[in-house]
């Protein structure tokens, strides 16, 4: 049982890091539907570097760097060129999926390094994740930078008039967001499941995207959602823990995705929205052109 809880926490942290990055993006008004692609890049390059240098630090560093670069690329497309954000995000996802399949293939197989040690029996990323959630909340809601980010996400033209540099703020957010998604991918391939395989993510990034919608754009709710989905994911891999012998293991694998749709349905009902209000950043997804 303890092992299951520890493993679920590990899975949860992958969702937390990626979704936290996306939350920061979205708070500044930028939607990046391509986090799965960024994660694939971070995971694949982190894996290759860690394997060839036999050093975890380089792996994580490269994962974060490539994530940040892809975040910048998304920023360049959607902020500077004014391309539709969904088109750009899709582009990054398909680029990630296509290119990492080709680049990673010669490295198919296990990482072959000693496992990263746990701290008090739990993943070290659990502690990092908790700290990151608190920092993100603090920065977003208690600092002037956070106020800038949120105002850019609500109404960029008003923010611009009050002296905030919309472009710079959005670039900052997409870069940090990409970095976190890249790191999340690297945690997957270097810690959670250190084996490179064709298209190994199978939807983690898209669930992380959905988690941001569930979270009402609040880092603490996001953490709760990640813990729930990390546990669900782990359960879907080991259904015998709860209901031995019921349904084939393939059907279990589908359950986290079905539950995601269910939760999206609940939060979009009138009842829910009247109760909890719409926290959605007003300018989310719309390009801002300075007149």
């Amino acid at each position, binding site marked *: 049982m303890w092992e299951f809880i520890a493993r679920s926490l590990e899975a949860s942290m992958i969702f937390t890091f990626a979704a936290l990055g996306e939350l920061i993006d979205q708070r500044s008004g930028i939607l990046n*539907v391509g986090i799965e692609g960024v994660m694939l890049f971070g995971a694949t390059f982190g894996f290759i570097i860690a394997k060839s240098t036999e050093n975890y630090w380089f792996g994580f560093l490269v994962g974060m760097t490539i994530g940040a670069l892809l975040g910048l690329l998304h920023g360049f*497309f959607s902020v500077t*060129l*004014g*391309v*539709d954000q*969904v*088109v*750009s995000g*899709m*582009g*990054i996802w*398909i*680029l*990630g*999926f*296509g*290119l990492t*399949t*080709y*680049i990673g*293939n*010669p490295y198919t197989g296990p990482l072959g390094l000693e496992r990263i040690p746990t701290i008090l029996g739990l993943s070290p990323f659990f502690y990092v994740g908790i700290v990151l959630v608190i920092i993100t909340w603090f920065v977003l809601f208690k600092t002037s930078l956070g106020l800038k980010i949120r105002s850019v996400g609500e109404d960029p033209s008003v923010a611009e008039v009050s002296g905030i540099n919309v472009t710079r703020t959005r670039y900052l957010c997409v870069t940090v967001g990409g970095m976190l998604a890249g790191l999340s991918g690297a945690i997957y391939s270097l810690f959670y499941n250190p084996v490179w395989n*064709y*298209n190994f993510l*199978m*939807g983690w990034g*898209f*669930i992380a*995207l*959905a988690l941001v*919608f569930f979270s009402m754009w609040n880092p603490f709710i996001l953490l709760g959602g990640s813990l729930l989905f990390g546990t669900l994911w782990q359960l879907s891999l080991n259904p015998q823990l709860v209901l031995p012998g019921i349904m*084939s*293991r*393939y*059907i279990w*694998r*589908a359950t986290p*995705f*079905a539950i*995601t*749709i269910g939760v*999206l*349905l609940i939060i*979009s*009902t009138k009842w829910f929205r009247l109760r909890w209000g719409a926290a959605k950043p007003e300018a989310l997804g719309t390009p801002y052109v300075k007149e």
Partner: protein
Amino acid sequence: MKLGNYELKLERRATLAGWQAAIISIFAIIFALALFSIIFVQAKVNPLLAYREIFSYAFANRYGLLLTINRFIFLSLCTSAFIIPFKAGLWNIGMAGQLYAGALGAFAILFAFGVKDFHSLNISPQLLIFLMLFAAAVAGAVLGAIAGFLNGKFNINEIVVTMMLNFIVFWLVAHMIKEGGPFMNPGGRGESFELPSSLYAPLIMGIPFTIFLALGIAALLYFLFAKARIGYQIKALGKSPAAARYAGIDTFKISLLVFVLGGAVAGLAGYHYFAAVPGVYKIARNYGYFGDLSFYGIICGLISLGNPIAAIPVALLFGGLSIGGRLVQGKFHMSFGVDYALLGVLMITLVAFQFFYRYKIVWRRRKD
């Protein structure tokens, strides 16, 4: 930027004519292929030689051409499945799930008629083939309808929903064809049972009849968007949901409709690959590969700016590139996934070129 008496400026386009869009798209494809040469160079393959191999195999070799045409039919159907919701401003990235559903639907008909065990039939094959096609379209449409309903009724993000459905049906197919699933091959190879030869889709000069479906649907869609009232309503929703609502258009109905139609077309793509392509005739173990290929449909749809007729040559080209890419990969001992990498590079180049749909570079004499 100033150069002597001339200056180089970016100007926003007021309108974009069809031929201008076509030129930009052609440039985007050429640029992507040039960019992709880096992959060949890095693998120590001469890019010009590689492209000559790709094109001569895909379009001039008898076997290669047949493969290309089969791939084209598949991509063309996936592209239409993407374009219909896209015209309404909605993203159908669920072609993968919808085509798996279509394949399951088609095989469910055979299962229901006991084809799996007996291989002998007392019902006309033509009727069964028709039923398979119908079931494939219905199964795809049902999956599409879920996304359309949730989007139209509750405004739930259709990208997330269609992607979730992709994974749900992916695992459902695994359940059906593997480890004792109802559609499992009697040989137990982790793939579905095979079609009896009497139910192979009819071929015309070696090409499955589904080519007429693909071309017919594209032509029908062109007509729908150019002339029909419903096509106008779909486009109105895509241009501005608020304006469409003021004009009295039932946005719920349109969201549902576009996803039902898109899903049905993607379901036919599933029928095509698993029941009509010579040499397959079963839900193969690597069915996920065909699901992934369906994402080429997104690129075809975007690059042709949602024009179903313009998408035809693009789908043919991309079909050839993906077939030729596989050949080159084997021939020059490159790493697995050359066709995937090409998909990625084409897509990201296209995204960058979106800029030119809205801006133009002008080169003129300075006024001062």
